[in-house]
């Protein structure tokens, strides 16, 4: 019953091809996210204009004989095709042609085959043409899909309501495409609702509990950390003495073992005497040190239960002189240091700290040194935390309100006040509040107290669509946002939170659509450290830092914290570039880096940095500077234990040239490596050039990546490369008794390559080429900022404004802070 047609094979293959292979351009090799990366590449990308004459000539020479006016084998005619793809069916037709070429099906085996260069050119040009056509056809005309809050924005919005810092682990990380803010890519599922519900309920429950539970009477708990070690020292010392006495008195072995089971046999007992002096040094010293004066030396840790959101006093008594400060931390955060004048025989240090709403216990850690002796720790509390100004939530839901027998109206008023802010002052209906009161009454009727009865209705508010979704009025046509909507979009862009009072007020008085006002709000907001989350999250998504997370680093580098530092470098660098308003040239090359001590050492810089990241000027001799030389970028561009010019080239095309390569087509012939040859990475990758189907794209990817060959797969500078390095041997578990490796053969690194017709000799040359093409980088960053800010892909309708804004920015040498301001004040940013 299955299809029985004589020319089935031909028709079927046509049909297959019709269905396969049209993708939006994706992702570097091997890296897949929920959605393939959309092409931001405009038709004016580095691909250049379509050479239709050459394309026609190819078809004419190789195809039209069978698929032309006279013959239409398989019902296919190729002499009348329009190279300007205007509709979906045309995409499909071109895709068919591409697919039969990619799989070597056409021209048929018995016909003359096109020369490799011609085929490479044709496949490459048609692939690019389809890519841009697909983007054009998927365009929505600038429609922005409503979206729900990202994890960053959810936490920011909850922190705004509750006035407390929330743990990042409250929600799982978002799974997203290019930017997490793009509404069209979001699919809301039950799972997400449950995550929001769980997180909301936890925050609300803890807050209500903190308000409702009265402050217990403060008490003081004294902890004598010395007691345990002092007693241990005494016991060890006394055992020593006893054993010695027994041996000297000639006691039988069985008696000795009773005192010290570690003495294994009589021979050892004899030896014991000889070694006694040496072995007893430590117990004696410890005993002497603690004898009669109670104390513990070195570090210690102490955990007690505590009340959330309260203040505590900590008194630490030390017995012997300290050299400088010793850090004291509570629940992993530093709260101060033990410090006092040396020479004092006994001094005490008093510290205060507060517990957060999530702290139900306190762990005190003192990182002391060996020659320091502590006597005791006294913890007093809980006290009312004077530092805590009442939060918005505490003002709305006061302790008094919870304890009284509130009427429905009072409960409704309380819920309404909370809900209005949660819904970003975009309106709350009385019917909604009435439903919430109903839920509250259900809980009361079930026997819960007032605080517990508020958990569900309040959780309902922070899981309602008006809270979880950003609401922008729209009748289906594009329109300018209201000032309030603009304020909300602006605040979520720059801060990842709702607007603060000042911004809300300015919008409410219609004062925000004013050049000076918006400028001063921008400066205020970007200057605040609340903008760190934007600068970090945006650049991390732009740079695809999650690709770095997926690389398995050598254990040594993970253990010493290098991985964390390397991951952070790009965002620390970007924060400096933006806040100091540097030119975007710095992303390609800069005379400084922003590093911590670990990275400074990794890069061979002589520094002595305090904790954290700092700007460090590079010496003339250093090859570092710019994003390309950052360890995380270089390591992302690796494959196993070798560099991957393909991934590096892809990343450069995506980020720096705004020209993401199309995804690899299916069914192309595989590249094989001849057996027994030892190749450099460049020679290995160059094998793509031998197959037209591969070369058509790889010729525009790999040679760019060659420019970074002086950086090995871990991002270290090198001038020589080991031949035949590959991933599969190095990372597999070593077999026992494996043969010693033969001596490694090394050759000088060749970092020459090209971008289209622009050749370069080495890494510096690559940087020069990229600087020459920096308009592409500007476009990449501008479009990405805009896309992130408004929550949709950039389309052709945006082009005119973007070109205008970029030419303004170019005349100022592309300053980065100014670029963000320009994006935010563009008409597109204010349009729904």
């Amino acid at each position, binding site marked *: 019953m*299955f*299809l029985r*047609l004589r020319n*089935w*094979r031909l*028709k*079927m293959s046509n*049909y*297959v091809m*019709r*269905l*396969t292979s*049209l*993708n*939006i351009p*994706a992702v570097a*090799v*091997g890296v*897949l996210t*929920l*959605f393939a990366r959309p092409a931001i590449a405009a038709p004016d990308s580095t691909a250049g204009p379509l050479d239709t004459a050459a394309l026609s000539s190819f078809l004419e020479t190789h195809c039209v004989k069978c698929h032309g006016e006279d013959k239409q084998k398989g019902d296919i005619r190729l002499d009348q095709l329009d190279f300007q793809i205007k509709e979906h069916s045309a995409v499909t037709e071109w895709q068919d042609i591409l697919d039969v070429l990619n*799989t070597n099906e056409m021209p048929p085996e018995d016909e003359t085959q096109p020369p490799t260069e011609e085929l490479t050119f044709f496949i490459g040009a048609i692939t690019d043409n389809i890519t841009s056509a*697909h983007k054009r056809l*998927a365009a929505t005309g600038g429609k922005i*899909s*409503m*979206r*729900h809050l990202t994890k960053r924005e959810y936490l920011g919005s909850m922190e705004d309501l509750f006035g407390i810092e929330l743990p990042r682990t409250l929600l799982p990380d978002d*799974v997203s495409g290019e930017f997490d803010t793009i509404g069209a*890519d979001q699919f809301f*599922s*039950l799972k997400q*609702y*449950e995550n929001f519900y769980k997180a909301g309920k936890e925050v609300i429950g803890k807050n209500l509990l903190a308000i409702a539970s009265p402050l217990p009477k403060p008490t003081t708990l004294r902890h004598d950390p010395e007691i345990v070690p002092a007693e241990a020292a005494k016991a060890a010392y006394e055992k020593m003495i006893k054993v010695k006495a027994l041996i000297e008195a000639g006691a039988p072995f069985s008696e000795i073992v009773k005192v010290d089971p570690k003495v294994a046999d009589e021979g050892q007992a004899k030896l014991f005497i000889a070694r006694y002096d040496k072995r007893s040094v430590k117990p004696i010293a410890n005993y002497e040190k603690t004898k009669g004066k109670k104390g513990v030396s070195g570090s210690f840790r102490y955990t007690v239960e505590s009340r959330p959101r309260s203040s505590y006093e900590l008194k630490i008594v030390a017995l012997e002189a300290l050299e400088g400060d010793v850090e004291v931390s509570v629940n992993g955060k530093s709260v101060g240091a033990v410090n006092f004048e040396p020479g004092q025989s006994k001094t005490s240090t008093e510290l205060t700290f507060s517990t957060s709403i999530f702290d139900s216990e306190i762990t005190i850690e003192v990182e002391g040194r060996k020659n320091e002796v502590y006597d005791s720790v006294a913890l007093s509390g809980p006290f009312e935390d004077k530092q805590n100004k009442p939060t918005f939530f505490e003002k709305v839901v006061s302790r008094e309100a919870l304890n009284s027998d509130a009427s429905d109206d009072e409960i409704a008023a309380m819920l309404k006040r909370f809900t209005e802010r949660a819904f970003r002052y975009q309106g709350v*209906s009385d*019917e*909604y509040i009435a*439903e919430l009161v109903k*839920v509250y009454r*259900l809980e009361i009727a079930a026997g819960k107290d007032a605080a517990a009865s508020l958990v569900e209705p309040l959780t*309902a508010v922070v899981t309602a*669509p*008006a809270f*979880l*979704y950003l*609401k922008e009025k729209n009748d*289906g046509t594009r329109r300018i946002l209201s000032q309030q909507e603009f304020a909300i979009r602006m605040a979520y862009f720059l801060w990842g939170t709702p607007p603060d009072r000042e911004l809300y007020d300015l919008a409410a008085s219609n004062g925000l659509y004013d050049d000076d006002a918006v400028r001063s709000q921008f400066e205020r907001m970007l200057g605040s450290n609340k903008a760190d989350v934007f600068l970090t999250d945006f650049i991390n998504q732009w740079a695809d830092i999650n690709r770095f997370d*997926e690389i*398995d680093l050598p254990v040594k580098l993970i253990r010493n914290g290098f991985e964390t530092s390397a991951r952070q470098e790009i965002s620390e660098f970007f924060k400096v570039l933006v806040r100091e308003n540097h030119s975007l040239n710095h992303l390609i090359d800069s005379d400084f880096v922003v590093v911590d001590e670990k990275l400074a050492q990794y890069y061979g810089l002589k520094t002595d940095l305090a904790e954290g990241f700092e700007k460090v000027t590079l010496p003339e001799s250093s090859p570092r500077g710019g994003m390309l030389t950052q360890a995380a970028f270089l390591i992302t561009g690796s*494959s196993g234990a070798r560099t991957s010019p393909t991934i590096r080239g892809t990343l450069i095309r995506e980020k720096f040239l705004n020209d993401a390569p199309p995804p690899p087509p*299916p*069914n192309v012939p*595989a*590249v094989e*490596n001849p057996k027994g040859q030892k190749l450099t990475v460049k020679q290995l990758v160059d094998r793509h050039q031998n197959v037209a189907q591969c070369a058509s794209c790889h010729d525009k990817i790999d040679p760019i990546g060659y420019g970074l060959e002086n950086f090995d797969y871990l991002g270290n500078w090198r001038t020589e490369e080991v031949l035949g390095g*590959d*991933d*599969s*041997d190095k990372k*597999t578990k070593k077999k026992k008794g494996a043969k010693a490796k033969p001596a490694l053969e090394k050759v000088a690194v060749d970092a020459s390559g090209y971008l289209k017709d622009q050749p370069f000799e080495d890494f510096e040359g690559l940087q020069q080429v990229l600087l020459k093409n920096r308009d592409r980088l500007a476009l990449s960053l501008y479009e990405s900022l805009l896309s992130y800010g408004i929550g949709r892909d950039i389309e052709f309708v945006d082009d005119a404004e973007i070109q205008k804004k970029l030419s303004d920015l170019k005349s100022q040498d592309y300053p980065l802070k100014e670029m963000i301001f320009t994006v935010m004040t563009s008409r597109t940013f204010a349009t729904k």
Partner: protein
Amino acid sequence: MSIDIQNRRAFLKAGSTILALPLLDSICEAQAAAPNPKRALFIGFGFGCTEDTFFPTEAGRFSDIGMTQGMAPLKRHQNDITMVSNLTNHGASHPHSGSTSYLTGANVYNTPGKKFHNSVSVDQLVARKIGQDTRYPTLTLSDSATQDGHGAGLSLAWSDKGHPIPGITTPIDLYAQLFGQAKESSQEREFRLAQKRSILDGVTSDFKSTKRKLSKNDQDKLEDYFQSVRQIEQNISREVEWAETPKPKSPLREPGEGMDGLRAVKTMHSLIVAAFQTDSTRVITFRQPIGSVLLGHGLNLNPHSLSHYGLDPKRREVSQVKDRLFMELLASLIDQFKSKQDLNGQNLFESSLISYGSNLRSGHGIRGCPAIYTGGAAEKLKRGEHIVLPEQDTPLANYWLTLMQQIGVPLEQFSHSTGTLDEMVS
């Protein structure tokens, strides 16, 4: 039956979901309580296999043609497994997406006016017929791998609307879902149901007032939200229905933390068997990881690099080890099915259909995708053979349609199917 090419093209242009949906209701009506339940398990494995050592070339009974080197671990089941060659998922286009459209057949990147569009998956359709009498109509199991050749999506399963269905990714979570005892009394549950309904009423009324101010597109977006909330209500109602039936006692020990990837997949397999054994569900999909399993076996190699095994003889060797390792896993899974009975005393293997495959054949190749099935749930399906279909690139959707019909799902059309495969049926 012959097929009109023009109509097929028109259908394909229209997109596949649209046609599949109207049939759903009729499936539900057709459902009746089966005395001898049937079960279905779909495993998808991402990147493909080693071309010249995994795939058999000769057609015939495995007992005659023998097993290839890659499939050798399945030898003890050679009279029960069937492999079908010359299939191609016409919806697949991306050479790194073995799983995105594996059970849907949708052409996700080429639906007019959409950046990404998928359609309902086979398991969801099957569950409408055979999954209605159990605590869970389907169980969706998945991995959290991003580099294993699965492509976009969260699991193999996609909803009616073509939205990704998130899966359970760890043995601990799966165990809790299957055997964790609810702390809620039935009274508390009724209460929670009333509460949720009230909250839903609240948001619905709030939504009504704002709805008018939103574009059609945004209203659709919000509909996803309401769908989720309604689903909670349905789930609680279902829990109420099942409240009198306590969860089964587990035939297995509770899994612990800190398993390596190989151990985790083995445990997932045992829990799949336990889920069927206790009749907790009758339809399961599992998007199986590669990288973590290899790591558990002591091989640290990115699965994508491994799929390009032709570049290096050492890689080829590892690729072959990988094939065998996964076939060993499948063989032991079949062993477990064969050794267990369900609650009615039926043999688990004889009452199940197990399907194993991917959109990806080998390297970047998507033509001739690997398709293996086994189990006795569908009496008429041939067992123990390598079937080579006469036409290259026969739609994978035809394979799914055949499997669905054979286990009693009354569908005439699925995704881009053009018919059923008589070659598979005796």
